[in-house]
């Protein structure tokens, strides 16, 4: 018989909030709601990491996902002005998608529930030594090549994002720009939205030095 104290209440609460908000993030009609539910999901995951005594990763999750990725997504939703989209009618392909997802879910969860080997695992040992110094030493010694590669990827992503999101110059192929064109580009370079667009799209990539 299980005792009441065996049930990990804190974990179950965090997991429930995270899962419900994840479902909301994927199913709500209004995209802004979806973005904000995604924020809640990320916060819940960060709490789970803290619960697993991975402090550094937990706060990195808050900093990168909640502070940059999610805000970027909300930003994009607001800028593309499609906050209220109508839900397209359930089509055959989306039903197939749901079927695939349920099949994947079943094939992942069933072995976990039925497997006898996981129950034999020891319960959590003492909190491992994940001091920031140790993480830094590992990063700078054992993992220095992946670190450098990641730095390259981030730089490339930042430049790529700026280049992709930059507005195509309408005057480039047109030797005699119309006044309207000039006005258009002028307002682009000064308007808050235009500047915000370029800067924000490159933000999350350079979040981590």
């Amino acid at each position, binding site marked *: 018989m299980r005792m009441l104290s065996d049930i990990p209440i804190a974990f179950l609460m965090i997991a429930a909030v995270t899962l419900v908000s994840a479902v909301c993030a994927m199913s709500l009609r209004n995209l802004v709601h979806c973005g904000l539910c995604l924020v809640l999901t990320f916060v819940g995951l960060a709490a789970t990491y803290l619960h697993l005594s991975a402090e*550094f990763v937990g*706060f990195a999750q*808050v900093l990168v996902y909640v502070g*940059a990725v999610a805000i970027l997504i909300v930003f994009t939703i*607001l800028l593309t002005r499609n906050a209220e989209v109508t839900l397209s009618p359930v089509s055959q392909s989306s039903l197939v998608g749901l079927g695939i997802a349920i099949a994947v879910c079943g094939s992942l969860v069933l072995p976990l529930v039925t497997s006898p080997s996981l129950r034999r695992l020891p319960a959590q040992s003492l909190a491992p030594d994940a001091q920031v110094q140790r993480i830094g030493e590992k990063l700078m010694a054992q993992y220095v090549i992946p670190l450098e590669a990641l730095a390259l990827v981030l730089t490339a992503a930042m430049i790529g994002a700026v280049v992709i999101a930059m507005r195509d110059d309408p005057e480039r192929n047109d030797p005699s720009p119309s006044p309207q064109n000039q006005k258009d580009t002028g307002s682009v*370079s000064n308007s*808050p939205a235009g500047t915000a667009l370029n800067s924000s799209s490159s933000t999350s990539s350079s979040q981590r030095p």
Partner: protein
Amino acid sequence: MDFIRYLDPTVQFMLFSAVKIVLVFAVAMTGVAYAVLVERKVSAWIQDRVGPNRAAPFFVHYLPVVGPFLTKLGIFQPMADGLKFILKEDFTPSYVRKIYFWIAPAISCVPALMTLAVIPFGSTLGNANNPMVIADLNVGILYTFGIVSLGVYGIVLAGYASNSKYPFLGGIRSSAQMISYEIAMGMSVVSVFLVVGDLNLSKVVAYQSGGIHEWLIFKQPLAFFIFLVSAFAETNRLPFDLPESETELVGGYHTEYSSMKFALFFLGEYAAMIGASAMMVTLFLGGWTPIWGGAPASSLLVGLSHIVWFLAKLGFFMVLFIWVRWMLPRFRYDQLMNLGWRRFIPLALVNIIITAGLIALTHK
């Protein structure tokens, strides 16, 4: 007070933590109220006016000399302001998105207060097991940056919820500005932690406890400058108050707000100022250590003097924030972005490289 000694250590810890939380909250709230008063008095002084000098409850008039003097200083003005905010009609325009409209002020206010949790505001009060910091986190600075980045949501939500043009523009501007300057801020701090070798803010203070010549402001002046300017941008203060610039955007993201909800935004802004000042004091001005340096206190009186030192340094930065607001004009938006992305981030990177090089050279 003897019964505390016989309590279980966990209970003791929880009791002390609760007391510290309540005290820090009370001091921060009072600080916000009186920062507004100082702001009004300093602006009046700079513009050759008198400032608030009338508000007073009726019994003050019966006090000789002291009463009129306090009234003239405007000591009672914050209470009148607070009362006014509470008693005003809490008006919700019909076209706003209600839930977000109500949540946004709270979201913008809470993170600003949460950053105060990891700031060591004093050494001890005689008992070495009870440091004067609410949560002595090993990843203190990461916590601060994570929480500060949550503050953006309040402003974006306020802009979105208001469902009208000016707040929306203000919200978008503000989020881009805050994300951009967060990067510059984070990178300027990296060099500080290269020097100290720890992310724990108590260790940063301990490193600087040798006296004024040990303070990191002298070892990392460039990092301090970048952090200071970024702090102005992060708290949406002049010269970077684009999100709420009255002359272009009416009031930016809080155009549609009134009464207590507006007061929460106001409170959030000043609490963010207090948080940023506390961070600068801790990182660059030696935290609670006196000018001549000092070890953690061994008696109650010394401990209290350390808290006073911390508050004095904090007050210095608050006055600086206010003074700058009334001395400098507002930046243009592209200038702001230019400064952040093309000046500060490269400068901070160069600073990191130079610092790392110097450490590598001198370490051997």
